[in-house]
């Protein structure tokens, strides 16, 4: 959906509202599906607690000197990695959930039935990840709260809006990558390899779990260009160093062009993949 859509279609806003009303249906579907697997649901929360414990143990063997300082404050590895995990959760949602949703719909045979309804591709994509977009931040927030309570992590509550701003600018970037992955899944059926590669690359070449100080030089150069590294630093500066929105303007301006390019390329790729499948008549095949 863009400006030319609005100009071409006099009912654009009415359609926008109609499409928006479909999103809760996806949310309800995904919640009920998750709830139907109650063991997996509770295991996920147990896993979260174990993750906190695991990184506490790893933190005890990491040299504190390799961990950067934020807002002039030297932070510990556990603080460093807790924020990394929280941000990576967003990346994983955008990258893996859209692909797995499309793949699942292909496998169980509902993709053709869904796309035979009057739904826009964007609504389908957004609807497919909506539950996770709500659930994962809740899960992440709980992770951070648990971490701050049990691991004595000091977070700056007043800087949450600044961290959120950086994430909001970053979401279109991973969304675009997710669309490219979804396009690959539609076209080649198995998009998981591409997603895994992208996710591994982004994880390694960023400061998600390890400070850039521990990387070899050639990886460090990649890591410094990676928009995810900028986002990680921005969120840590906010949550651990107390930086405000004004302090993070440089990060926002650095990430924004990546986001725009990724979103445009991703939307185009997904639209092309969908048209190709319709043309070939293989939309429901897997």
């Amino acid at each position, binding site marked *: 959906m863009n400006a030319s859509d609005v100009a071409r279609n006099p009912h654009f806003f009415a*359609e926008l509202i*109609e499409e928006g*009303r*479909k999103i*809760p*249906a*996806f949310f*309800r*579907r995904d919640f*009920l*599906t998750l709830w*139907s*697997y109650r063991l997996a649901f509770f295991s996920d929360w147990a896993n979260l607690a174990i993750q906190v414990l695991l990184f506490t143990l790893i933190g005890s063997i990491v040299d504190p000197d390799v961990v950067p300082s934020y807002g002039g404050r030297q932070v510990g590895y556990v603080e460093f990695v807790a924020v990394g995990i929280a941000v990576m959760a967003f990346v994983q949602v955008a990258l893996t959930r859209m692909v797995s949703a499309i793949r699942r719909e292909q496998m*169980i*045979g*509902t993709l*053709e*039935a*869904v*796309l*035979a*309804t*009057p*739904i*826009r591709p964007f609504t389908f994509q957004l609807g497919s990840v909506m539950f996770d977009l709500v659930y994962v931040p809740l899960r992440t927030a709980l992770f951070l709260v648990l971490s701050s309570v049990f691991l004595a992590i000091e977070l700056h509550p007043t800087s949450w809006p600044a961290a959120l701003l950086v994430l909001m600018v970053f979401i279109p970037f991973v969304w675009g990558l997710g669309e490219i992955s979804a396009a690959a899944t539609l076209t080649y059926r198995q998009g998981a390899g591409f997603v895994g590669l992208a996710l591994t690359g982004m994880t390694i070449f960023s400061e998600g779990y390890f400070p850039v100080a521990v990387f070899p030089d050639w990886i460090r150069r990649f890591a410094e260009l990676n928009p995810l590294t900028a986002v990680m630093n921005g969120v840590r500066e906010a949550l651990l160093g107390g930086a405000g929105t004004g302090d993070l303007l440089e990060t926002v301006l650095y990430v924004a062009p990546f986001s725009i390019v990724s979103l445009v390329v991703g939307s185009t790729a997904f639209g092309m993949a969908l048209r190709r499948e*319709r*043309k*070939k*008549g*293989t*939309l*429901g095949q897997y």
Partner: protein
Amino acid sequence: MDEGPCRNSRFSLNVVIAMDGYGDFESAVLRVAGVSRSFGPKLVLDGIDLEVPAGTIHAVLGPNGAGKTTLLRIIAGTADPSAGVVTVAGDSARPGKDREQRRRIGLVPAQSQSFYMRLSGYENLLFFGRLQGLGKKRAVRRAHDSLAEVGLADAADMRAGLYSTGMLRRLTIARAVLVEPPVLLVDEATMGLDPEGARSVRDMFVDIARRGAAIVWTTQRIDEIRAFADRVTLIHEGRVRFAGSVPELIALATPRHYVVQLSNGSSRSQEILEMGRRAVVRFGELTAARGGGDGHFLLALDPDTVLGDALNELTAAGCGVISVREDRSGIEEAFLALIDRASHER
């Protein structure tokens, strides 16, 4: 959903249907004109024409691989044609590109596994109703109504994964009629169902057609279109081999194969067979029916011969004719004759 006044008079093309739910359309609701489709060098559909008025059931008949499902996909907009036009309610916008068109078409796919099996039948319908653009209250009401319509009201809260094949089939029908679209595309709806289940499904569609929907019904089960479909188009190897009414299709068939039961007082079938063979040699061929030890034989008549003459000859030769029946139904004869003719044309 109110019951419509009546089903169209059969084969009437220029009627106006004014009914609650399934819309108000003149003449043919669905028109398919010159639709072709290739997959690489293979031509799967070649210049298909269809015209389906409101309130009628149009059977698309053909053997496996005839191109029936591809045709439905093109009409539904999940596949593009290489050439030709599909018009729904006078609008030739492609359903794949036009959301309004997709609203006018209900699809009952061949496979029943097109639901979220962890959700109940009701939740599945609620979800698809919302995707169709229904508001929450209306989606809830239509989900309940549709389930009741297909006899699944008692199983509404049961997980779809626990439904039997027949129940899943009925759920696909309930989904297709959620928004009461003017066109319903039904792909092999009775596949895998027992005769009673198949009859029940056909009855549902007769009822839906009675309320004004134009139904395209693909099948390879030729026995089920008799007394069910208003029109039939027979497709073989992507081309229309016949288009007309079911009686017209049957009229094409001259039955040539019969099962006859003969007796001459002798207990030996082989003797009767030899006598019979000699008697009908000018009319065709008499062979032993499989497992026909009790005097049953197959009589295959040559073209331009008359059954009565052959039976007279058998009687005159001392073979008493106890019973005669067609080995195949007339409609099956017609189907096979058309397929056979198409194969010889190649």
